[in-house]
């Protein structure tokens, strides 16, 4: 009844042997590596407790949030809004400008060199 499974016994023996070999491997670290590990540890320990976040108390944060919301709503209401005709006009103008720019391929280089063209123009007027 108490007969042990030989495979599992061998496995345990192998694991034990491996553990000893690995531990030996870890103990064979050179002084430079050990020193680097100590430095890494002390760097890590400097971070203990450094992640404390400041939280605004609810008594302050909730009224502040309401005040901000109120300010946004008020500014939306007070801002002069364009009439429906104006809105269409602005949209149409900007769309046509974009199309014009897009369609005139040769004009893009001109826009890129606009500073130079302005300067050239001013030179022409001066001379």
């Amino acid at each position: 009844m108490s007969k042990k499974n030989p495979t599992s016994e061998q496995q345990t023996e192998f694991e034990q042997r491996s553990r000893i070999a690995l531990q030996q491997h870890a103990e064979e670290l050179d002084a430079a590596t050990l020193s680097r590990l100590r430095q890494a540890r002390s760097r890590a320990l400097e971070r203990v407790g450094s992640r404390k976040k400041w939280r605004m108390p609810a008594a302050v944060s909730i009224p502040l949030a309401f005040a901000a919301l109120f300010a946004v709503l008020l500014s939306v209401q007070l801002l002069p809004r364009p009439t429906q005709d104006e809105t269409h006009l602005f949209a149409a103008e900007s769309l046509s400008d974009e199309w014009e720019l897009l369609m005139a391929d040769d004009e893009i280089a001109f826009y890129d060199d606009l500073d130079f063209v302005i300067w050239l123009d001013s030179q022409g007027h001066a001379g």
Partner: protein
Amino acid sequence: MAKLEALEWYWDEAITAEDSVSTNAAELNRFLASVEKRAFRMAEIAVGDREEALDLVQDAMCKLAEKYAARPSDEWGPLFHRILQSRIRDWYRRSKVRKRLFGWLPATSAAETDVAEVQDQACVEPLRQLESENFGPALIAALQQLPIRQRQVFLLRVWEGLDVKQTAAAVGCAEGSVKTHHFRAIKALRRILSEYDSD
């Protein structure tokens, strides 16, 4: 008077919090000192490079200290290994991407050696180690041949002594997979190191 009492209470609380941080730091220092050598060797076996391994261990230590120092000390072991193993997996992913993007460039340093190269190199090692009849180095070389999950599970179960549940949490897989990986790892290692079997 009430204000004075409130101030004293606040002061006491502040001192207690400070004491608790220093106690945690001292305890964490002992914990990290107890695991650092094994952690370094695990990382080194995984990535095959000393500098990379040191970086990985330092990252894991910093993250543990920064985020989990306040947790109960018995949770530090599994947490630390979870962080470290996750860093090692990230390293493998980055290596794969680097290889895909810059594979055509000649490798210039040991740090740029990719995973496949590390494993190819490792394939030659066991034979050499068998000849020298040295189980330790042969075991390290054999471990480097294992797939990453099998190696992680074997090291955490056998060396770190984590149980199946803790290992599953550290490696990020199911408990059933831990048992499978462990079994396969031992089978593969015993096959590679059959010369060293006492039977």
